[in-house]
């Protein structure tokens, strides 16, 4: 994952907390996309951001807080050089093997009609993704998107 240069100035920052209700999937992606609009993104950038955010938020709801409810913490940081950093964090069950979880088609929930393509979608629609997870403590997915890059 490309790191964010220390000297890059922060332009704006948003924090959002939502309960893990599926109705908030649409809310979360629309809110993040609206906030990122300040960086003057194209239609493709917006569609990419919406889809990647939807994947991460859905994972909190269906996996992290499976059979329970919790809070989803979203932080969006916009940098002067048109970089957008989106952090999606849960305090759910955690992922025992992140490398395995990120493989295309890997899912722990095949009966739930999941295809195991969420992480693959996040990877291909952003310019970088980092996953930090601890079993029993939760997961943080960090997405980097450079606005205006052709990806």
């Amino acid at each position, binding site marked *: 994952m490309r790191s964010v240069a220390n000297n890059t100035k922060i332009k704006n920052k948003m924090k959002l907390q939502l309960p893990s209700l*599926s*109705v908030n*999937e*649409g*809310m979360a*992606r*629309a809110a993040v996309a*609206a906030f990122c609009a300040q960086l003057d993104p194209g239609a493709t950038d917006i*569609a990419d951001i*919406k*889809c990647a955010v*939807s*994947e991460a938020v*859905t994972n909190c*709801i*269906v996996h992290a807080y499976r059979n329970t409810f919790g809070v989803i913490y979203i932080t969006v940081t916009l940098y002067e050089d048109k970089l957008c950093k989106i952090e999606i964090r849960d305090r759910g069950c955690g992922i025992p093997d992140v490398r395995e979880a990120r493989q*295309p*088609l890997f899912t722990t929930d095949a009966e*739930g*009609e*999941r*295809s195991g*393509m*969420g992480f*693959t*979608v996040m990877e*291909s629609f952003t310019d970088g993704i980092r996953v930090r997870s601890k079993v029993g403590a939760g997961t943080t997915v960090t997405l980097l998107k450079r606005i205006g890059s052709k990806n």
Partner: protein
Amino acid sequence: MIKTSGKLTHTLEGGRLTLKPTGEIDHHSAVALREEADALIYRTHPEVLAIDLSSIEFMDSSGLGFIMGRYKLARTLNCKTVIKNPGVRVSKILALAGMERIIKTERDQK
């Protein structure tokens, strides 16, 4: 800007059932879409199931699950599945999953 759920319209012609979801397909909307679609498939017992994706405004990997789920159900009823007219965004996601190798995709000339 926020459209909370996808809707489903359908047409039945000969033995061909066309399901046309519109709006946004995510995990939230997929639950209702799935129930409605399966009820139609069981009721009409088609020879061909066409899933028309031309009116989708947003779809994530939950849409892949929705399509695969209907494909699997159709197969148990000896019914063939085709995907119709996915837009640019939807096509990208289908391609990531290699969906076109499993389900035939038809694109009408415009």
